[in-house]
């Protein structure tokens, strides 16, 4: 028989903070976000955390739950609690601002450093550029394009923890979807940006990003695609 109370340890403070324990009533279909919200609304209003949509669309509520990075809104307590115990901490590999809130700047700055923005060839005076939905490049881009930037992959990546300059799975996945975009004009510059020790060549293919992505994207496959694209560019002298 499960207890009707959860023992919840929540990270408080900054990087040098500590866990604080709370007792939270258990409910059917309760999510980890429900638990954190209960603590803030009923037990300690000073608890800082982020959320917005509550339905797995915005990617803002990711935290480390019992040691694993997850979307708290889509994680049922029943699936992750260990004997009625739960630990909730901020995402790893990002600076902690306070409690469960991390500073996401470096995560998004790396998307920009990986040339994660589309560079078009046409102007508004031109007609739409048609892309066949079944073209091989479009199919490859489709596999990675649903990323919502929650940073679960970045937080789960061992290489980021060893090499803070590493662009990380999300930024490289974004770069890969643009390399596969036949309308994009910035490919050579992008391949230069993602090659090397801080880019795709640093990946150890541990597959933690792929295992943890809540959208079931495989950034590891995209990173392998980038390695092949960079290799081709190097062979042609275009790097």
């Amino acid at each position, binding site marked *: 028989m499960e207890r009707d109370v959860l023992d919840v340890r929540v990270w408080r403070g900054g990087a040098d903070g500590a866990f604080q324990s709370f007792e939270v009533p258990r409910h059917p279909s309760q999510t980890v976000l429900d638990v954190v919200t209960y603590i803030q609304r009923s037990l300690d209003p000073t608890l800082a955390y982020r959320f917005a949509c509550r339905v797995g669309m915005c990617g803002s509520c990711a935290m480390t739950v019992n040691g694993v990075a997850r979307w708290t809104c889509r994680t049922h307590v029943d699936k992750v609690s260990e004997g009625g115990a739960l630990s909730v901490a901020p995402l790893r590999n990002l600076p902690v601002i306070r409690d469960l809130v991390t500073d996401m700047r470096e995560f998004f700055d790396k998307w920009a450093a990986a040339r994660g923005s589309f560079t078009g060839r046409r102007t508004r005076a031109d007609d739409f550029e048609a892309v066949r939905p079944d073209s091989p490049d479009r199919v490859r881009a489709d596999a990675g394009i649903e990323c919502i930037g929650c940073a679960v992959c970045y937080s789960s990546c061992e290489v980021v923890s*060893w*090499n803070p300059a590493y662009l990380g799975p999300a930024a490289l996945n974004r770069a890969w979807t643009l390399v596969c975009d036949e309308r994009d004009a910035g490919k050579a510059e992008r391949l230069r*940006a993602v*090659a*090397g*020790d801080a880019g795709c*060549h640093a990946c150890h293919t541990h597959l933690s990003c792929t295992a943890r992505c809540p959208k079931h994207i495989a950034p590891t496959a995209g990173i392998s695609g980038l*390695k092949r694209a960079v290799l081709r560019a190097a062979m042609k002298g275009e790097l």
Partner: protein
Amino acid sequence: MRARIETWLWIAQRASAVVLAFCVVVHLATIVHAVQGGLSAAEILARTRGNGAWLAFYSLFVLAAAVHAPIGLRSVLGEWLGWRGRSRGVFVFLFGAMMAAMGLRAAMAVFG
């Protein structure tokens, strides 16, 4: 420039790995064959002395290892010790040169 160097280091490591995969299989098969009925220095030297094919094979093996290992060591030093920059490059280059010199010396020693 940096992207190009890093990429060619990566290519060199993968290409040397292909050579090493072949060399290691030949090397292991030779060991299994050589230990049948005992192993002696005289038997090894009888096979390698004056044999240009074995010298070429083991020289290739040594050079592939001398390319492959320093590039891997470079990543280990960067990730585990945070050692990056020019000094790391000089260190792993010297490490590779030492591997090549010692390995080629050993290959020559059993040839001549």
